[in-house]
């Protein structure tokens, strides 16, 4: 039978909650893996309560957990732990994002897990890693962002740093975790053995410094990256410019300066001694910004200006609001944004699947589980008798809910 997607037949035992870990298992589901989401009784993943909610169902939870199977049980109960041990033995991947040390205290540290299943790949996701002086801190996106030297580089030069209103770090950490899980699975085809992965928010944020770390270090501190509001501190023009109504992202540096001058009908500036070099333009940033904004606003036609700049191959973009992205034809055509359906919320939009495979179409029919929705199915699958499932449910070891 033709596999449904690249991970068809792989089973993932997923102890993660909140965002970074669930982002990883969300991608694994979208690639066809069977993900058993273990939720802690009685409430399950705390994100089930996060806004926006409708009919007691959280869109946040749904976005991160479509297609997963819900198993909700009491982890402190020996019977619950015994069931999980049997699931560990039949899974390819174990994923967790508790604080370092917690999973071992629950009885599923790496040494125990590898005894139960030598082929399993275990991935631990944390804020600051499994070791080091900061390992005990809570793993929260913007806390790691601040420690990574990232927050300091965002915002107005003369004010406090600004908080980016999306969780780059958590989602990106999930993607890093999936990349590492994949390499370990690929390696397992050769060695037959699993291994333990240690992925942290701090490492993944820090990994995104494409220039800053080496620039400070190799220059002996002569180069000092700093936040500088809407414009780059060392490249000009590069930044955000006001058009007649909307903001534009525009890059007119390097070999784009000459075509930009031509579009603005200011050929005189191409070789002008004050403006011909990046250094010269950085020294007169205020003048350059005023010149470009003056021209943009004088056209009084933001759409026309954008078309002319793009026609001249000058990197330029409207700064779209989230609402505008959702309605944009490019996003719709490529399913960068897509409409999904939830049983209780109805239709709404979420970001698309960013990994696109020519041989496997997107799996569209994924539902986020109700609390403990798949308790019986999962346990029957590992040979637990129906009477025992009923008894465990009666005893409160297994828990279910209607959302």
């Amino acid at each position, binding site marked *: 039978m033709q*596999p449904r997607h690249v991970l068809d037949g792989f089973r993932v035992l997923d102890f993660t909650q909140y965002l970074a870990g669930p982002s990883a298992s969300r991608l694994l589901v979208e690639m066809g893996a069977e993900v058993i989401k273990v939720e802690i009784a009685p409430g399950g993943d705390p994100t089930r309560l996060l*806004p926006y909610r409708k009919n007691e169902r959280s*869109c946040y939870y749904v976005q991160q957990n479509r297609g997963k199977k819900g198993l909700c049980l009491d982890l402190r109960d020996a019977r619950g732990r015994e069931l999980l041990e049997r699931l560990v033995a039949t899974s390819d991947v174990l994923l967790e994002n508790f604080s370092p040390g917690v999973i071992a205290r629950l009885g599923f540290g790496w040494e125990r897990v590898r005894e139960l299943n030598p082929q399993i790949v275990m991935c631990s996701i944390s804020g600051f*890693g499994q070791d*080091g*002086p900061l390992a005990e801190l809570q793993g929260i996106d913007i*806390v790691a962002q*601040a*420690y990574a*030297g990232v927050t300091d*580089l*965002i*915002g*107005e030069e003369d*004010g406090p740093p*600004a*908080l980016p209103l999306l*969780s780059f770090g958590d*989602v990106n950490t999930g993607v890093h975790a999936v990349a590492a899980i*994949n*390499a370990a699975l690929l390696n397992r085809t*050769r060695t037959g*053995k699993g291994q333990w992965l240690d992925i*942290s928010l*701090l490492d993944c944020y*820090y*990994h995104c410094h*494409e*220039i*800053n770390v*080496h*620039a*400070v*270090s*190799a*220059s002996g501190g002569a180069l*000092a990256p700093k*936040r500088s*509001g*809407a414009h780059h*501190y060392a490249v000009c023009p590069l*930044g*955000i410019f006001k058009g007649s109504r909307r*903001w534009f*992202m525009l890059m007119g540096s390097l070999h784009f300066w000459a075509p930009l001058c031509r579009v603005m009908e200011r050929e005189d500036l191409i070789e002008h001694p004050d403006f011909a070099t990046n250094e010269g333009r950085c020294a007169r940033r205020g003048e350059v910004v005023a010149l470009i904004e003056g021209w943009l606003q004088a056209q009084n036609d933001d759409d026309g200006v954008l078309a002319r700049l793009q026609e001249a191959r000058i990197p330029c*973009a409207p*700064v*779209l*609001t*989230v*609402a505008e*992205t*959702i309605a944009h034809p*490019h996003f719709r055509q490529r399913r960068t*944004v897509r409409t999904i359906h939830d049983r209780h919320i109805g239709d709404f939009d979420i*970001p*698309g699947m960013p990994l696109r*495979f*020519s*041989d496997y179409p997107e799996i569209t029919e994924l539902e986020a589980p109700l609390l403990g929705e798949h308790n019986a199915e999962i346990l029957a699958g590992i040979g637990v008798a129906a009477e025992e499932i009923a008894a465990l449910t009666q005893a409160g070891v297994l828990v279910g809910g209607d959302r």
Partner: protein
Amino acid sequence: MAKQPILDGYRILDFTQYLAGPSATRLMAEMGAEIIKVEMAPYGDPSRAFPYRKHKRSAYYVQQNRGKKSLCLDLKDERSQAVVRELIRECDVLIENYAPGVIGRLGFGWEQVRELNPKLVMCSISAFGQTGPLSHLSGFDYIAQAYAGVTSVIGEPDRPPSLPMLAIGDVTTGVHAACALGFALLDVHRTGVGQHLDISLLDCYFHQHEVNVQAYSASGGKIVPRRAGSHHYAVAPTGIFRGPEGYIMILALLHQWPVLCKAMGREDLIKDERFKTNELRVANLQELIELIEGWLQRFPTDAAAIEALQAVRVPVAPILTVPQAIAHPHHRARGTVRTVSDRMLGEFDMPGMPLRFSAHPDLPELQAPFLGEHNGEILTGLLGYDAAAVAELERAGVLVSAAH
């Protein structure tokens, strides 16, 4: 027996330049794959000219290209095309980040390469994807960021949006690509055939909206994500507060709010009508900020305030500068930052390998290649050209190399 690196034995033909593509193959090089970086004669990857440079060597290029082999050739010459066709037969992966259509015009589009090697996995990285109305646009990190609705939610509400001073999008796109490539390779084990991957900066940026898209859409437009400076627009207190010396990141989510009140010695605030719920705290944010900042000023140092909050497990962090992050003992202890040595530049620091494997240590001895450094090794060792043929191609300018 010395342990084989995790991707030992995989060979990648790498047509990428600048940042997003090279980030993907950098990760694969760090996992032990053999990367043949195809650089265009005469200058190679344009990032070789990027600052910071010393001895004609770019630290930017070095950071992204350690452990790769450089093959520099004139791709317009038919003899180079023959070399590339032979290499495609010997490789597991072809990766490229030209504008859509360019690789096809060079003769190495997906339909062409799959005929040469049915097991080959091809990955195309672009700004806006291989299809769709924007696919023709030239692509840089910030341009896709603006289109993704990301830029609009960063900065002060009454000022222009702010430009984050790092290329989160390019690097994360590289990670997405490495991730997809690996799964396609895993699939080759089962199906015996490769496939084509279409990874874009726009998709990868947009993928990071964990709240904004669903909240706007499901609320029917009632929740409008917007930039709000140093504080979150819908959760309070969550943001950046003025400490006795600098700025401090503090979050007190639902259950942490009473803990913060107690830490401030203000248990009365827990029941205060202005702050009882998250909605009320958002509505009275200015008063809340003044209270918290006033309390912070009582500490002699930022570190003392941070320690007091960490002691009661309220999430808090210093806003480290890049030099402070480089020097931090945790970052050093874990290798989040590491010192590398380049033959021309000497020693300097760069971010560590973020993927950590229990069974495979990091590969510390990686060098970024000089331009065309491995021309001879690849043509003679891998493709069986004799030395005279390689010398002839060098004389004809089809193969190019430089000592930096």
